[in-house]
């Protein structure tokens, strides 16, 4: 599938230089494949033009499912299927059902959202990632430029754009 992928990799030392650099690089028409950082850099997803994550919406959907399931289950079990006189109280009343409804909502929202996150980000225990530079988890910010998406510019041009934008190193990486 990824038979012969060629990338140019820019190494940035400082997150502020990186942020300014991304803006400069994008302005000159270069398409950035991805930027790999050892920690989340505030503002990076904005300057890269990424759309906001929809995981909160997913979490909400899972949560609503949890609420409905818990409410329906309790009302059906204690209200219809086998009602029992407990302390002379109503068979199915809302206040005592609230703790279980709340906990189940939280459980499904959390598990559902995290599962969705792992799937959406393609995180699997049996996968080795495609590493552009081993220092991306240590202390460097690594910018990967896919040469196939930037056919209009030569390698040397791209390298000089990266260097002017503040990259301390520019390397080639092929897979």
């Amino acid at each position, binding site marked *: 599938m990824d038979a012969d992928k060629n990338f140019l990799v820019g190494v940035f030392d*400082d997150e502020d*230089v990186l942020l300014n650099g991304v803006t400069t690089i994008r302005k000159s028409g270069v398409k950035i494949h*991805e*930027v*790999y*950082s*050892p*920690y*989340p*850099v505030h503002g*990076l*997803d904005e300057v*890269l033009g*990424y759309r*906001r*994550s929809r*995981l*909160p919406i997913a*979490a909400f959907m899972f949560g609503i499912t949890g609420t409905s399931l818990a409410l329906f289950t*309790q009302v059906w*079990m*204690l209200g219809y*299927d*086998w009602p*029992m006189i*407990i*302390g002379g*109280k109503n068979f199915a009343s809302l206040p*005592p*059902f609230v*703790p*279980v409804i*709340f*906990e*189940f909502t*939280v*459980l499904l*929202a*959390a*598990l559902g*959202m*995290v599962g969705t*996150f792992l799937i*959406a*980000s393609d*995180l*699997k*225990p*049996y*996968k080795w*990632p*495609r*590493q552009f530079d*081993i*220092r*991306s*988890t*240590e*202390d460097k910010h690594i910018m990967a430029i896919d040469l196939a998406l930037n056919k209009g510019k030569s390698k040397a041009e791209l390298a000089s754009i990266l260097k002017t934008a*503040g990259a301390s190193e520019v390397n080639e990486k092929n897979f």
Partner: protein
Amino acid sequence: MQVSSSVRDPLVTGGKTIADVSHDISRQVEGKPSRLWWMSFAVSLGFLGFGFYCICYLLWNGVGVWGLNKTVGWAWDITNFVWWVGIGHAGTLISAILLLFRQRWRMSINRAAEAMTIFAVICAATFPLMHMGRLWLGFYWTLPLPNTFGSLWPNFNSPLLWDVFAISTYFTVSLVFWYIGLIPDFAVIRDRAVVQGHKLRANIYNALSFGWQGGAKTWMRYESVALILAGLSTPLVLSVHTIVSMDFATSVIPGWHTTIFPPYFVAGAIFSGFAMVLTLLLVTRVVFKLEDYITIYHIELMNIIIIVTGSIVGIAYITELFISWYSGVEYEGYAFYNRVQGPYAWAYWSMMTCNVISPQLFWVKKIRTSIAATFVLSIVVNIGMWFERFVIIVTSLHRDYIPSSWTMFHPTMYDIGEYLFTFGFFFAAFLLFAKYFPVINMAEVKSIIKVGSEKTKPESH
């Protein structure tokens, strides 16, 4: 070089760079366990083994091997359950609530605190399971599963069942929150192992890190997940211990049937939890040489939280005492009169000294910035909180409405044994965590170190 604000204390001292963070924390995972680690692990396993024998004896012979009787139906079992659950709450508070309040000082302590939560909740869960007696039947009878008893459903009106849902949800969500935070750090260890040439370690930590790479898109999703999990965990902390307090508050016994329990228990949980976090971290930071990450400033802030929650607990005690007289209800009045000067008065006064007086010492700056004083007081607080639960449960049960049922409770070796089992498990698990997992959240700490590059001029001060 580090650029830090001139008005705030630096959260990471010692002029650390981002690479230093990886190095200082990963080297503990990469090195062999030290002699001290092995000795502590052996001692923990000793407690675990003895306790395991006591548990097996209990399961074979029944709950009668404990000191319980018809009057005092709950004693050490539920005391220990509530104690451990309470301790667990500090971890979630540090990870979740302090994240929502944007308190960056939480970053170097949240991983160890969450690990403590998970192990504490496991320890807590052993008690309701064991006190069922026929554990092999009971543990799934609480779940709403179709069965052959006409499909007999659990009683959703009972706080004991709310506990089942609350504790299992709390455990699962805490575990997931903790693990998601660990993923980027496992990737750090994986990459260091690749560089160092350790294939096995690289493969293991790659599997643990789910192939994490650290792309901006993934980090964006990761932060979104962390924020939502924090938002979910916050009401979870408050609700779980409220539900645990309802085990008592929804009953009819004087000393139990009181509306003050939910906020009182939650404040007490945070109080004892922070004390346990301090006990663990004061040792860890010295042994692992992490004094630049878990600084005196962090310890002072945790002590301030202990003053706040300790004061709430103190006010709750005094309120309870006052209302028991002011209400004019003779049973309520006697319940507290009995606590103050009855046969368990020694337990009550230990509780009052440890919980009301000792946290107030932290008003003195010298004491709250002293490591030795903090360590001693953190243990005192935990002892006091154990006595609080013991006093609530046993003194209210042993003398309630009918004097002819009044009796005393005496623990047996098996009550104490199961408690030691949980200590053994907790410390063994924490030692394993400290050895094989990075104890501090490296990615978060890196994000708060502002490294000035040659392009930005550092401020001189």
